[in-house]
């Protein structure tokens, strides 16, 4: 599995850390570090973390084994959001 966090958008709510502590960790008060290539055994937990992030900052691939993404605002959606 692969994942990337848009750390401009991330606000350090640490929901992801709660759901997938072996993938995400806070470094200090609010800096997020994560493993961009987590092991398959993390799939369930990672899926929950992606869903729980209040600002949809996490994009993951391989969550359902089809290579589809966990991000809803793909493509243009995100551009509109940031592009004002």
């Amino acid at each position, binding site marked *: 599995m692969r994942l990337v966090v848009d750390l401009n958008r991330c606000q350090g709510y640490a929901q992801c850390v709660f759901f997938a502590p072996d993938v995400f960790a806070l470094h200090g008060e609010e*800096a997020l570090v*994560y493993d961009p290539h987590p092991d398959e055994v993390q799939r369930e937990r990672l899926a929950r973390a992606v869903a729980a992030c209040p600002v949809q900052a996490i994009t993951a691939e391989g969550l359902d084994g089809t290579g589809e993404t966990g991000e809803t605002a793909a493509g243009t959606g995100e551009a509109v959001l*940031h*592009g004002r």
Partner: protein
Amino acid sequence: MAGDDFLRWLRREGRIVIVGASLAGLRAAETLRAEGFAGSLTLIGDEPYEPYDRPPLSKAVLLGKASPHHTELPRRREIDATWRLGVAATGLDTAAKRVRLADGDEVAYDRLLIATGVRARPWPRESEARLDGVFVLRTRDDAVRFRRRLDSSPGRVFVIGAGFTGSEIASACRERGIAVTVAERADAPLVGALGGVIGAVAGELQREHGVDLRTGVMVTALEGDAAGRVRAAHLSDGTSVETDVVVVSLGATRNTEWLAGSGLGAGPRGIACDAGCRAFDFRGIVTDDIFVAGDVARSPHPLFGYQFLSLEHWGNAVTQAETAAHNMISASSERRPHIWVPAFWSAQFGVNIKSVGVPGMGEQIMITQGSRAERRFVAAYGYQGRVIAAVSFDNARWLEFYQRLIETAAPFPPDFATVDRRAEGRAPMPADFPDPSLPTHGPTVTLSGYSPADRRLVFTPSRH
């Protein structure tokens, strides 16, 4: 073909070529497909790897929390592209609409996206740069090599340049218990990007974490031993430091050499493009089939006086790629301007540093929340009486609010009464940026080009 027919044809069976297969190239390819482009798509990249993420290379990777081999970017969707990886584009014929490759091949396009980014500026003296133990950090290969050296527990790491990358490297080394010296030409770390007031805080952070920080000095020479391994760095103040690892963190150079002679307005500062991401040719005439995105682009921004911004920011690469891709396959009236408000993050010494806007334009700075002594604050930057940027240390949740202030050109000093404000924050002070004509390590935001008062190159994009 009439315009509409051409577009319909382009979207159905045109050829789009993307040069530079990294963050911007990948996100552009995904956007093209997401918006219905059904023609042929080719991605050309000189690195032999599929697109990977760079920010972890100076953070999680050095801390041992991620593998340098595995930061590949997740795909948002299938892109059904032809990948030409491990081969560089070496030339562009804009009249024949062909990209020349290092292996002699040529690839024809109807629309071209240039996303060739930047590369690390090497140590200027070649014989010294070749010494064993001298590194730069930009690519996956760089990270693999550097991480391997860190894993062998060097006695000291010497970092040249205290910009974001250099500071992050120093932070990771300290966390691993490795002795670190940082040499910076300016008076503090991060000065080029955030100014002297914030730079002073960054400098205190480094020293508190045991970094041997040397400011106001230049490295004059790297010395090797008989076996060709680096053994010491010599400084302009006459001192020298023994070290077995040197990381050269002197900023980046734009990858535009391959465009020499193409007629595009491409040079060491990047490729100039309009707010719609269309490249300018060297005459200052905008092209309509060549687009630019990511670190290699320079584009005018209405919020910042139409100055041409070159941003080495992850979020800029993503958003500009999305806008460029959309515009590549859209009619003029449906095109969008790239008017993303610059945003950046960095994690170092356990502190989350984020900024919005263009701090480098700031004349004044004011601590609006929190306190520098606690390493937890927000500072706003003012330019001609308006808020132009903000930076936060461990206070990221507030930045959106400041982004709004920037977007609406809210007055500076800000006059809101609700946020907590300590004594130190009541008065604006000079933001203390170095003279831009004296290069430091290379700021992450650079301003260049013409101002509206100087009408040679100005045009006005529409806002939506």
